[in-house]
């Protein structure tokens, strides 16, 4: 799947602003970005639900509106962020309905088993928990045995347990040779599931690579976050040994450091010398979140 130069303008905003992507067969590709970055619009353009103002999309060697959209839809599976399936219908009836739209695909029972809803097969959709509803949505996307699966924020709003079970389903699909395009604003999700990640902000890709590459690009493997009683100057901090980058959000400083063993004692000495005192201090392994912060100065969840 590839797209080039995608632009989508709405009356008041440009949601997608010149986007190029390439997703290879068999990989799980993640679009990571805060709310409003244009992820959903991008996915809907790729799914052929929203026409782009500019740019081209090619899926499985085919283009949308080239006359055979239905054949292309046979080969993709879609889970939309906002769909709320009919509440009065049972799990099995829902999957059966979706199955009937496709020429070929999985057995209804089998898909229900794959997403772990056997016990709920005769329950009405309205009675399911958030995680179960989301697994049902994924079941409806999987029922056609698609080559390419689109998941738009599949775990947003779910508790950790529900998130884990959804991750299992996604990983199983990928092990079976399927290709996945996934959007998320959870960096753990992108790190765990995705082979490659594109970080999106304001309708553009601002970084692209494997999660490991992106984190490495920070030139650091650790982040120190701290706050102190008397503010320190930026210069004092960036001049410390092994410090590669500095961000300040409110009272909290975030230092990305290449070697924690050198940077931390130096920082503590500096704080003491400035006659300041530590209020909070934490260190963690650098993550995709830190990549996003270093590129934009904002947190993913700030939106």
């Amino acid at each position, binding site marked *: 799947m590839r797209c080039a130069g995608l632009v989508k303008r709405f009356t008041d905003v440009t949601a997608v602003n010149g986007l190029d992507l390439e997703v290879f067969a068999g990989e799980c590709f993640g679009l990571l970005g805060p709310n409003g970055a244009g992820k959903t619009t991008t996915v809907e353009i790729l*799914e*052929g*639900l929203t026409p782009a103002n500019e740019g081209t999309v090619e899926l499985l060697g085919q283009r949308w509106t080239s006359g055979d959209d*239905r*054949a292309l*839809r*046979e080969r*993709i599976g*879609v889970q*939309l962020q*906002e*769909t*709320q*399936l*009919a509440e*009065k*219908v049972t799990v099995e*009836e829902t999957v*059966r*309905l*979706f*199955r*009937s*739209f*496709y*020429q*070929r*695909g*999985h*057995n209804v029972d*089998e898909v229900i088993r794959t997403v772990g809803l056997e016990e709920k097969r005769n329950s*009405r959709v309205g009675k399911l928990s958030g995680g179960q509803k989301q697994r049902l949505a994924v079941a*409806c996307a999987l029922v*056609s*045995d698609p080559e390419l699966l689109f998941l738009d924020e599949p775990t947003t709003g779910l508790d950790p347990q529900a998130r884990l079970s959804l991750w299992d389903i996604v990983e199983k699909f990928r092990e079976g040779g399927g290709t996945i395009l996934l959007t998320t604003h959870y960096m753990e999700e992108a790190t765990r599931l995705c082979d490659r990640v594109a970080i999106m902000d304001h309708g553009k890709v601002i970084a692209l690579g494997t999660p490991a590459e992106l984190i490495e690009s920070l030139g650091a493997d650790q982040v120190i976050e701290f706050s102190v009683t008397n503010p320190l100057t930026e210069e004092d901090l960036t001049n410390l040994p092994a410090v590669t980058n500095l961000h300040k959000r409110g009272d909290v400083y975030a230092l990305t450091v290449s070697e924690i063993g050198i940077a931390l004692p130096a920082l503590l000495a500096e704080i003491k010398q400035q006659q300041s005192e530590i209020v909070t201090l934490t260190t963690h392994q650098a993550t995709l979140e830190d990549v996003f912060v270093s590129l934009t100065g904002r947190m993913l969840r700030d939106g």
Partner: protein
Amino acid sequence: MAEAKETLIAGSSEPKSRKLHPLVELTMTRVREFLREKEAVFWVFVFPVLMTFALGIAFRNTAPDKTLVAIEAEAGATNTGEVANILSQSPDVTATVLSPEEATQALRSGKVSIVVKPQRDSFEYRYDPTRPESRTARLLVDDVLQRGKGRTDVAKVGEEKVSEPGARYVDFLVPGLIGMNLMGSGLWGLGFTVVIARSRKILKRFAATPMKRSHYLLSFMLSRLVFLVLEVAAVIVFAAVAFGFTVRGSWLSLTLVTVLGGFTFSGIGLLVAARPTTIEGVSGLMNFIMLPMWLLSGTFFSSERFPQVLQPFIQMLPLTALNNVLRALMNEGSSLASNWVPIAILLFWFVVSFIVALKIFKWQ
């Protein structure tokens, strides 16, 4: 058996199992959703029956009430007793002697239709000529008194009393209620379901599958067909049992017209639901469309009562057309061919609304 096991183990695709047809599954989903919505079942099936019952009882044909007359008895009047005596001879009159104040009060409040004031050798009638029952009372009382005083009839008359089934109010009402019910369930049934599906992004989700769009819309027509038969039958059977209602025309014609009516209002429902994204939006639109027809289309009383200038407009309304055909078939037993004008009007609405709806329908 061994074969079945093998395909299960082999896993992924299932070429051998029963093929699910999208139209069947979509229609089944519609039917299930409807039956599991208790309120909808009430409004479509129970409400029209209750309505028929209530209105049938309220306007049932009973023996005509006696005309109520007050005889004004002024102090010292002598012939009050004679007048009372004459009036009491008539089986159609109930007369009471009242004081002038009481009589005036009784007339004003409608307890009596006329006040008779006996003079020395004449009568004075006091009544409101704008009230039909008072005019009738004036004629009746005068007739009784004149005869009592010795007037003789010069011409002989014969009478034949007609109040057979087919000419009563309930006979007028039942086809109208069926028409109104077809309109209501068509518009609500389609309008709401489609707009809810749109607002919950289910339409968008369907648009992302290879589902044929015509299948989706057709499934509404088919599920309507299932319920249409039931809802019309419920009202007819009830009216037959409770009021001795009979259908004079052919059942086949009636079925065809009912289906056409159901489809016409489904088409209009689809048109109404083609664009709105909120329930509020579609509710307003539906009331805007249905209210004039409730009032004008002759459900509870004949639409002929409205001024002549409005008639061309009223006759073009789909509900007027449907009510007219239903009445002609059920009450008069006429044929489809003789009702081609309202049938053509219904067909026109069906085709136009369906085509326009398909053109402007929004899937997200």
